[in-house]
């Protein structure tokens, strides 16, 4: 009965407005993401947990809004910084946390780890640790839908820094050429590891650059639920209807260092504290109360439920055993007989 498993993942790219139901689903998702992160950081700080962890703080809204328009059978690809994407797409929280802890109940039996989450059941197909590596794969997933004549959409998430690498370029050109139903979601959090956007490209605008491949491309405030919800509806709707790929540059801000324990000395402290003050989960919560008239109690109930399911997931992960030694040589090939001895 974790939140994430039962969470609806939308119903397919309609451009209808943001209903109260949808707004609350999104709230539940961003809250789950935030709570899970907070809990993990707490565990890492105290030594209770151990993993490499890439913060998603500040980027919660992007996948939460996107997944409102995705079906379970739509495909998603993400990166090491992808826990938010996994949660939004509906990867069971217990399995997710267990994997990050390297336990046998994890999505990959503990063999993949936080950089290699995958759960085809929920459509989360690949998590890669190689910058740009996911984009060509996403084009292939989208191609499969086209060849099979289904209307599934593929969403691939990647960072702003990934726009500099060759694979990204090849994938975008190919997707545009083949008009496959893929949405390229560039989560522009302003930094590639420790380097600022303006320090690694002279591109005046990513959307404009990617429009150069002959596809739709748009920049959106990735920290605004209504804006993201609408942009995602359009992009996913377009892809689903067969009009080809779309590039979405979602502006956001990484509210911390590159990974747990990393410094932030190169980040502008004023900019960072301003971004923190305007962080998207709190901003959204205020908007729900102030603009949508949602009751405090409704939100507090969701928050409480989320916290307890996160706690349950962490406890389950801690209780789960590590993979058995035999696992070392299984899943290399379809059969162990093919292994060299």
């Amino acid at each position, binding site marked *: 009965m974790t939140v994430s498993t039962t969470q609806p993942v939308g119903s397919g790219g309609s451009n209808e407005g943001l209903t109260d139901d949808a707004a609350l689903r999104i709230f539940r998702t961003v809250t789950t993401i935030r709570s899970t992160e907070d809990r993990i950081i707490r565990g890492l700080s105290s030594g209770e947990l151990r993993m490499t962890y890439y913060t998603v703080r500040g980027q919660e809204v992007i996948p939460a809004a996107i997944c409102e328009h995705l079906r379970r059978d739509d*495909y998603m*690809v993400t990166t090491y910084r992808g826990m938010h994407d996994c949660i939004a797409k509906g990867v069971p929280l217990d399995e997710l946390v267990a994997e990050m802890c390297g336990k046998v109940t*994890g*999505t*990959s*039996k*503990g*063999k*993949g780890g936080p950089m*290699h989450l*995958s*759960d*085809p059941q929920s459509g989360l*197909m*690949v998590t*890669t640790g*190689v910058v740009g*590596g996911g*984009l*060509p*794969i*996403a*084009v*292939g*997933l*989208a*191609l*499969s839908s086209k*060849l*099979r004549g289904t209307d599934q959409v*593929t969403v691939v998430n990647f960072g702003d820094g990934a726009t500099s690498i*060759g*694979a990204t370029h*090849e*994938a975008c*050109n*190919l997707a545009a*050429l*083949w008009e496959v139903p893929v949405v390229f979601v560039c989560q522009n959090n302003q930094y590639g590891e420790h380097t600022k956007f303006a320090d690694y490209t002279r591109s005046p605008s990513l959307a404009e650059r990617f429009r150069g491949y002959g596809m739709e491309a748009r920049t959106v405030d990735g920290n605004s639920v209504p804006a993201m919800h609408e942009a995602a509806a359009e992009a996913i709707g377009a892809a689903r209807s067969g009009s080809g790929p779309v590039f979405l540059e979602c502006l956001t801000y990484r509210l911390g260092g590159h990974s747990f324990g990393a410094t932030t000395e190169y980040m502008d402290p004023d900019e960072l504290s301003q971004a923190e003050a305007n962080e998207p989960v709190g901003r959204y919560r205020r908007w729900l109360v102030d603009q949508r008239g949602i009751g405090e109690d409704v939100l507090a109930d969701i928050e409480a439920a989320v916290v307890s399911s996160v706690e349950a997931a962490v406890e389950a992960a801690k209780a789960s055993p590590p993979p058995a030694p035999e696992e070392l040589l*299984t*899943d*290399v*090939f*379809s059969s162990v*007989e*093919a*292994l*060299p*001895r």
Partner: protein
Amino acid sequence: MTTDDPIHTLSEAVNQAMDIAMAEDPDVFALGEDIEDPIGGVMKGTKGLSTKYGRERVRNTPISEQAIVGAAIGASLVGMRPIAEVMLMDFFAVAMDQVANHAAKLRYMSGGRTNVPITIRTSVGGGRQFGAQHSQSLEAWMMHIPGLKVAVPSTPRDAKGLLYSCIFDDDPCIFMETMSLLFTRGPVPPGRFEIPLGVADVKRAGDDVSVVTWGWQVPEALAAAETLADEGISVEVVDLRTLVPLDRDAILRSVAKTTRAVVVHAATQFAGPGAEIASLVGHELFGRLSAPVERMGAAYSPVPYAAELESLHYPERKRIAATIRAMA
């Protein structure tokens, strides 16, 4: 091998395997540079297939090997069986991230929840004055990455049977088409025809020395064996056909019998595929060999252009015969 099978080139045999696979299974499709008709692949492997199956299932791509391999991986994750073509093996160098970090690892990294049943066909140059960037045999790179299967046929028959198996194998397979053998002819069983991966073939039986080899060097070894037969030296030629899975038993069986082994390949000798086999033989048959295991691979240099140097660069029948003669 029945001798009344129709005669085809290795390239035609490759074409047949794809044709049959595509006819059998709608999930099979092909992608690569210039693979559509009228070209049908620069080495003609896909000739006629786009005409027969349409340009949706036999798709030209831009010059983007990362995207080619990546797109194949993506489609395969949901059960399709893509056949990607990388025009020349040297160009794997631009796509190794997709090959080694993704195709090879996704099954393992997902704990078996996904798998990557792709086949990557590639031509392997050498002996044709294509120069240093168009002549490399890079099977050692592939062997060294856990999770990749590697097939290197030396005859049209093997090419058909192995390619068919690769296409329907549930793991990523690298299928190497040696250019200098592509237009050699031989009998090819008609219709559906499969050769299991991981089973070596003794192309010539013999008693004195075992040559363990594959691909391009099989006919060279056979020619050397023929020469040596006249001199009273009996050579066994073991064609591995696949390097992963490696038919360890076949290698050891042959060398246990002859007690002498030469490993021959077109790849660079240093840190090459033959080192694995020589180490294996040396280890498993320690104390039972009559001579050290010899390795013959390409010289330690980029492949030179001038024909006179290129012929010194790769092993060939005369030098193979000389090596065997010296140890027999």
